[in-house]
């Protein structure tokens, strides 16, 4: 996907090997400063994703009165490396400071705390989210540093988390740190434009403002996974909790014939298992999507990353998932599924502790356009 499109990059493409999310508070003092911040972000992203010259200005092509614009970590010649930068806004941007209250995407709000959550509010929410993804870690960090430097006075990072996508093992959807393929269901709609439109892109009208066209609700959840505990439960138990086979990713039951190497894509079918004898009724996939026509419209686009970071005080590994999903309608999709998952056996092994609800802005349509233009133009 090119940088100029109705939609931003970093949403529909398969997840790159490295992903970073950073939530910011906007410290810009007024509307002109806010617009300047969005324009600067856009110009910097343009140059980063195309490996083009940085926009001229302080620090860039201004002679010998500045420290180098480039930090050098990517060497002397810029590289694109599959880089995407996705800019999303959080409910915090729509307070009284910038006069945007009336133009908030209708479902945007501080992240809900669900029954099984243990949220650290210091790692939740924010005014703006950058999701930076690329094929290599250095490329992601370079982008983060340049973007933060370019907006130093106007954005302050609130929390951040870096993760990775595992390579296919041995094939198919990448695995999470419980060893299960995660996000298999994306393939059911990603090659179907009509379904993708219904699942991903938010529609203006009703209670949604006009500017949201081309955007999508961007949910980030930081989820600790207790990997040591998980490794101490039997494989049968793991299968019962998830509702899929760990090796192949196949559902435990399906009407589709198995095709070697593509078992994960067999459609789950619980029609003859109403008591949950094969796929327990409280297994993760069955609660999330019972494969019942009434719940088709709560499917979402998953695009998460694994994270691994240090240890806790009891000597256990701090590992987990940066759960990311995109939704046409936050409540109809992500929130409905979270409610359905309440109390699932998997909750003993995971602990959501951070994240936020954001709205990925519409894309930039041409060389003159900038991220956030639609939103800021909505207010006189």
């Amino acid at each position, binding site marked *: 996907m090119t940088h100029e499109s109705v939609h931003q990059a970093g949403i529909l493409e398969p997840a790159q090997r490295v992903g970073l999310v950073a939530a910011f*508070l906007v*410290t810009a003092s007024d509307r002109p400063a806010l617009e*300047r*911040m969005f*324009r*600067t972000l856009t*110009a*910097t992203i343009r*140059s980063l994703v195309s490996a083009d*010259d*940085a*926009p*001229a*200005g*302080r*620090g*860039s*092509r*201004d*002679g*010998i*009165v*500045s*420290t180098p*614009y480039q930090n050098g970590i990517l060497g*002397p010649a810029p590289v694109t490396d599959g880089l995407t930068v996705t800019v999303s806004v959080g409910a915090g941007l729509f307070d009284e400071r910038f006069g945007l209250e009336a133009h908030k995407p209708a479902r945007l709000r501080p992240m809900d705390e669900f029954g099984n959550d243990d949220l650290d509010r*210091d790692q939740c929410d924010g005014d703006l989210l950058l999701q930076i993804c690329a094929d290599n870690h250095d490329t992601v960090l370079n982008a983060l540093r*340049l973007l933060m*430097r*370019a*907006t*130093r*006075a*106007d*954005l*302050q990072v*609130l929390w951040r988390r870096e993760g990775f996508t595992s390579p296919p093992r041995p094939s198919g959807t990448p695995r999470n740190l419980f060893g299960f393929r995660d996000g298999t269901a994306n393939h059911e709609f990603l090659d179907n434009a009509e379904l993708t439109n219904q699942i991903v892109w938010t529609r203006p009208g009703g209670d949604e403002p006009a500017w949201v066209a081309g955007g999508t609700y961007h949910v980030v959840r930081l989820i600790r996974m207790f990997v040591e505990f998980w490794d101490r439960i039997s494989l049968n138990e793991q299968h019962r909790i998830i509702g899929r086979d760990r090796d192949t990713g196949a559902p435990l039951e399906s009407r589709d014939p198995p095709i070697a190497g593509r078992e994960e894509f067999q459609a789950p079918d619980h029609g003859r298992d109403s008591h949950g004898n094969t796929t327990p009724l409280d297994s993760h996939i069955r609660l999330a999507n019972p494969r019942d026509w009434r719940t088709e419209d709560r499917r979402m686009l998953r695009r998460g990353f694994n994270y691994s970071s240090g240890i806790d005080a009891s000597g256990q590994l701090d590992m987990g998932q940066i759960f990311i999903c995109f939704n046409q309608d936050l409540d109809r999709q992500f929130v409905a599924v979270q409610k359905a998952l309440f109390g699932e056996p998997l909750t003993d092994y995971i602990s959501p502790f951070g994240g936020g609800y954001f709205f990925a802005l519409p894309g930039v349509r041409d060389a003159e356009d900038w991220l956030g233009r639609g939103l800021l133009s909505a207010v006189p």
Partner: protein
Amino acid sequence: MSVAETKNDLVPKSTVPERPIVLRAGSPYCIDDWFGGPAGEYDFRLVNEEAAGMEVYLQDVATERIFLEVEHFGRGATRAVTASVPPGSYRWVCITDYTIKFSHPVTVTGDPLPYDVYGITPLTGIDLRIPINAYVAWLTGQLPTLIEQLEHLRTSVRAGDIAAAKLDWLTAHLTYETLGGAYGAYGEAGDSVNGDPPRGVNAADADFAGFRKIEAMLWSDRPAHSIAPHVDALLEGVGDLATVLAGPNAIRPIDVGRRIHEILEDTLHKDLNGVGDAGSRTELATLDANITGTWHALDPLMTVLLEQDPYLDETEQQLRETQRLVQSYHHEDGWLPLASLTTRQRAGINAAVQQCVELLSHAAVVLDPRNSARR
């Protein structure tokens, strides 16, 4: 303004060569490989063929400002350099320990570039001596005030008046915090005056000296008589500081530019992270004093910076706004503790101080001591 303020960035690139231009520095005329072309951004690759270390400049003949520099360019070295070159008449300058060579004229043609490019006039260590001396004189002139304030503190401590001692301590500490003692600027003397409390121990009991030790004891209600010897030691430390400042190289030319952003870099790393404070919770007062200290470090350099730092106005404005913001947390009954601020308030302060150091870094680049390009 931010680093990448969007301006029209259309460069007449089609006429500027894509490949690096190789320049061999060392001929009798410094460089004979490139005598101009259209204005724009050039990639050069310089090779030192002089058999000695040198500096190479591309100098505007009329203004004597340089638009490209290669420093620390030793024998046999190659260096890639990118330079934006506006239209004008230039010459290459090659400077070694024993000679200075100028090239034939270099002519860069075309319309002015669609963005602002700033050259500088190289400042030598000698050029920086006058501002250094002025700064050291100012610092030295502050010491009697500091000593007097510390003597007040000693009197209050000896009288067992802890409440008065706390006020005296803050007054003296804030005076010290205007003196630019960041990043070990004053060596051991600086450490014994204002060293950070050791990690992981109660600072009031820890084995260290200076303002922070006294602060820790005052704010954890230690008996006044146990504090008094530490005040005496601090007064001695300030005496050592006077000796350091009287030395010929108390502040070297290389330190000048760095100092200007280092003061607030230190505040950012320590005070704004809650490191350093030993109980008085006066981090924001320290930040305010450090901003004042930055103004004082800038003061003797203003003449030079007015000529050479195109972002000076913006820098001064940012410093003023930041100081105003910080002072808004000072009320009748004192300074708000950093920890009492909301996340948003802290983000506002962090952003403002970070933007200050970004802008102050230009002064460091301009003030880097260089060789003169004059015969």
